[in-house]
């Protein structure tokens, strides 16, 4: 049996190259005769482009070409698309304005790409970009999602009030009826702050048109190279799909922001044919802040109807979602199908209704960011539940316990479309209470008070949905793609294995976990398995990595490919061992005749398949099996997080004392990697709650456009986490029983932190809970108390 198989905390294969600086990222790739692109970006949030004078730029040294939206239009290129058609309440399709790869006649946010300069060197490209003279006609801008409807600003033609869609889910009549009967209603108004993803590696692209082959290659920072290939060929129309290779080599973090197909990569590819040279662009950090798709930015009102015992009767929610200036690739499904479908949370609330208005504003596009919709749902539900507990004078643990979907109710159909296949919420709560020493909290609070500090504790019981599927269902809801996954297992003569996967690893550690999986399934040595991903010319067609789908969907495809290897191996073994195929059993890498000691190792079988001197007649030689897998449902990880913190009332500084995370991820392949994923997610979630905020001023300038003003969490902002993965409930519809763990930390943590802040200071404030906000809230309560 392989010792590094499923369940062992193997050190990650990929880390040696990452931590020794020998990774190969897009910007590391140098092609002969490579030229450099520099984009001219809009300094205005909203303006007409009256004229572009490029003559000075074109005359500058080293300049190979200056291109604008006029050439894009003249070449008949299509634009970037949003791949999920969401329909409004009245059945009308969402209103998507055009999204050209270079702005045409108008700019709609600061950083919008107006022109590109291609030159021999990066410095020359920059110099010339400064010499491109753009005459703008500045227009008023709409920035705030709560105000854009009535702003009178028309961001796109023929899209009244900047309203993209007005969508709903759930039973409004039943919900309103339950509210009419309720003994008590608790209401909250919430802002989900806007975030900048900040992957360590900024976006980059290297486009290469090969004249001889009449074919294109795009190296790019992508989480899903096949999806990029599809959009760039079928919608932007730069190259037919069979003449386009997309390679996403090592990618230094994505968090969602590298799912999307961006203008810059399309422009580099397109321009490479114009100048007959490979064209490279690498974002600097300012460009990343301005032009990477941002995350979250919701304004919501939520109400819970309860009976006299704090039983939830109905939940009613209205959300306004900021989409930015253009609809990014998956933006439309984030505040709808990935958000409102999660509003049941872990609770058996019988009636739920939510409507969502999505708006354009003159800000960077907003799309999926770690958790994508589910953090928004969790923040809303878990804030509301904590307020319900307060209103009903119930312990926050108790109100949750009362409303949990009971263990025996699974599979559980929620009122908001999803059906949870499995779950068991109380054990997570119990474990979290124990690890957090909830019983000892009053004493710790007393100790803090003795030091002049305020102490608070906050809960969050999250649910999330990973591995969005099945394709037929999401198709019926408007998705433009299927969300299956693929894998190939390829053996060589010497018994070594290449795994080709349609998922993409940009920090998750697939090279390790997928190798562990194959080692376990096929009994080969872990060291003998290499995982290949990110190159459309090599790997199986796949949908990439996001939404915590790689293992639950891609891993299961890999299992199916392994099963095919075993099935074929049995035929070969039966021939070699002169037994009937039905009598061959496969275990720990050996094919043996049941009840005998006659057996052949998988290496011997593979060798026979590749050197078929003695081989079953009629059977194809070779050992290379491919499988595709379309899941029956999402998977539903869940957990309970408890945050305990101290507030310094003098300065308003919040310091997390302890953060306890208990998760049910179903079965686990590599516990160390899972723990790492939770740590990273918690850092981002705590970042959202306490530190991070993307701020535009009224004119649409991003004033938090560098690390001088955008607070990224640092190690010393965070406590040492207490992370525990329960034995859990195995997913019922994949053979591995796995659920996905990549986003949980970011989904579950913000409400735990904010509930703890509210518990400490006695009032609720918005994220991020900066020292000044906390201090002001305390001032206000003091004044109110003094007035009493």
């Amino acid at each position, binding site marked *: 049996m392989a010792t590094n198989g499923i369940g062992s905390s193997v050190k990650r294969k990929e880390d040696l190259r990452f931590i020794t600086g020998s990774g190969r990222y897009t910007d590391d790739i140098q092609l002969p005769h490579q030229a450099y692109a520099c984009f001219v970006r809009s300094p205005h949030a909203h303006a007409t482009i009256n004229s572009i004078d490029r003559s000075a730029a074109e005359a500058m040294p080293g300049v190979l070409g200056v291109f604008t939206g006029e050439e894009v239009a003249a070449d008949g290129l299509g634009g970037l698309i949003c791949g999920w058609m969401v329909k409004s309440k009245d059945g009308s399709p969402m209103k998507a304005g055009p999204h050209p790869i270079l702005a045409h006649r108008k700019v709609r946010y600061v950083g919008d790409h107006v022109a590109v300069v291609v030159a021999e060197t990066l*410095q020359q490209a920059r110099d010339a970009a400064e010499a491109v003279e753009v005459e703008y006609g500045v227009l008023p801008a709409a920035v705030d999602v709560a105000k854009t409807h009535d702003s009178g600003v028309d961001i796109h033609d023929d899209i009244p009030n900047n309203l993209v869609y007005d969508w709903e889910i759930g039973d409004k009549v039943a919900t309103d009826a339950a509210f009419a009967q309720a003994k008590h209603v608790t209401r909250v108004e919430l802002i989900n702050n806007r975030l900048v993803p900040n992957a360590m590696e900024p976006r980059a692209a290297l486009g290469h048109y090969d004249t001889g082959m009449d074919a294109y290659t795009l190296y790019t920072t992508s989480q899903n190279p096949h999806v990029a290939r599809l959009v760039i060929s079928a919608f932007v129309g730069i190259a037919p799909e069979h003449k386009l290779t997309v390679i996403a080599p090592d990618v230094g973090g994505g968090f969602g922001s590298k799912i999307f197909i961006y203008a810059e990569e399309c422009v580099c590819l397109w321009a490479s044919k114009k100048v007959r040279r490979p064209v490279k662009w690498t974002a600097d950090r300012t460009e990343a802040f301005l032009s990477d798709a941002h995350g979250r930015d919701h304004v919501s009102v939520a109400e819970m109807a309860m009976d006299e015992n704090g039983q939830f009767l109905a939940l009613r929610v209205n959300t306004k979602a900021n989409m930015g200036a253009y609809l990014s690739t998956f933006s439309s499904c984030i505040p709808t199908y990935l958000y409102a479908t999660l509003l049941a949370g872990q609770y058996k609330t019988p009636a739920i209704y939510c409507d969502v208005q999505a708006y354009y504003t003159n800000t960077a596009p907003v799309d999926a960011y770690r958790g994508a919709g589910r953090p928004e749902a969790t923040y809303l539900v878990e804030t509301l539940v904590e307020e319900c507990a307060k209103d009903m004078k119930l312990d926050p643990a108790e109100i949750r316990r009362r409303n949990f979907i009971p263990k025996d109710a699974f599979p559980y159909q929620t009122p908001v479309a999803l059906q949870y296949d499995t779950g068991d919420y109380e054990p997570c709560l119990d474990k979290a209470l124990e690890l957090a020493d909830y019983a000892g909290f009053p004493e710790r609070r007393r100790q803090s008070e003795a030091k002049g500090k305020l102490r608070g504790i906050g809960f969050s019981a999250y649910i999330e949905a990973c591995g969005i599927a099945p394709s037929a269902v999401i198709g019926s809801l408007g998705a433009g793609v299927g969300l299956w996954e693929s894998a190939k297992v390829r053996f060589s003569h010497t018994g070594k294995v290449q795994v080709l996967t349609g998922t993409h690893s940009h920090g998750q550690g697939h090279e390790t976990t997928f190798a562990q999986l194959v080692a376990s399934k096929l009994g080969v040595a872990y060291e003998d398995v290499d995982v290949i991903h990110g190159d459309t010319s090599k790997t199986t067609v796949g949908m990439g990595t996001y939404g915590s789908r790689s293992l639950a969907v891609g891993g299961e495809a890999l299992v199916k490919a392994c099963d095919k290897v075993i099935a074929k191996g049995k035929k070969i073994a039966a021939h070699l061992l002169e037994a009937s195929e039905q009598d061959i059993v496969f275990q720990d890498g050996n094919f043996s005749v049941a009840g005998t000691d006659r057996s052949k190792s998988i290496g011997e079988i593979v060798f026979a398949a590749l050197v078929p001197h003695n081989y079953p007649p009629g059977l194809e030689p070779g050992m290379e099996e491919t499988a595709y897998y379309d899941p029956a449902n999402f998977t539903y990880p869940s957990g309970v997080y408890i945050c305990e913190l101290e507030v310094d009332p003098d300065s308003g500084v919040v310091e997390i004392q302890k953060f306890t995370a208990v998760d049910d991820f179903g079965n686990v392949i590599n516990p160390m990697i899972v723990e790492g994923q939770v740590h990273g997610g918690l850092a981002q979630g705590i970042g959202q709650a306490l530190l991070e905020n993307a701020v535009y001023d009224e004119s649409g300038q991003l004033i938090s456009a560098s690390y001088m003003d*955008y607070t990224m969490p640092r190690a010393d902002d965070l406590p040492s986490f207490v992370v525990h993965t329960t034995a859990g409930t195995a997913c019922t519809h994949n053979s591995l029983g796995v659920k996905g763990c990549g986003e949980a930390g970011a989904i579950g943590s913000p409400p735990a932190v904010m509930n703890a802040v509210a518990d400490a200071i006695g009032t609720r404030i918005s994220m991020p809970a900066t020292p*000044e906000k906390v201090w002001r809230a305390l001032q206000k309560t003091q004044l109110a108390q003094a007035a009493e």
Partner: protein
Amino acid sequence: MYAFGYHRPGSVADAVKLLADHPDAKLLAGGQTFIPTLKQRLAQPSDVIDLGGIAELRGIRAEGDNVVIGAMVKHGEVMRDATVKSMIPALADMAGVIGDTQVRNRGTLGGSISNNDPAADYPGAVVGLGATVITDRRQIAGEDFFTGLFETALEEGEIVTAVSFPKPVAAAYEKFRNPASRYAMVGVFVAKTAGGVRVAVTGAGPCVFRLPEFEQALSTNFAADAIQHLNVDASGLNADIHASAEYRAHLIKVVAKRALAKIG
């Protein structure tokens, strides 16, 4: 970056001459502010004069009751230096809370004070201790050196060579970090010196300033209680997305009390 000429003189005299010969030249010290400025194309000097090769700008020495620190001495050196730690431990503490390890191992005293970032820590120490800035041509009292937002008393072509810090009776520096940049959102340097009590505030206003009311109150009782009843006027203080002027005014007192509490 735009292209520029590069020079690495071996003496202050050579550097002064280079500056005179190249009116659009700029000095390079640790480069922690200057290099990012160049990379973002926010400055376009014709020439860059690197002070890194000038031995006379380095070194820390005790001169009577003063610690004299060369302009090219790095924050990390000040933080670890035995002379500084024994004579003015508050100064070593101050250097130790500048930026992070990488920044402290590049950034210099001369670069910091010449730049006079309103959120920098050093101006607090220079004014708080009543230090004297020494240049290639004169000596300038710390308070007269910092004249406004990113403005100093330095003349065209003048080079800071050292700063002389008098040993105080007691002193402490406390800093409330900007959560994003980790520069001072409010920094307060309190010192009891031969010439009286000094309280210098950095980070809160456009330029370092003293708080006479605090100083007066502390002259009779050098302890946190002495300023309990005082409030700082918010007018003229900085306001940004991290902190309003009002909050900064409040923090000045909180931070000053913490500095005083350190002295005990």
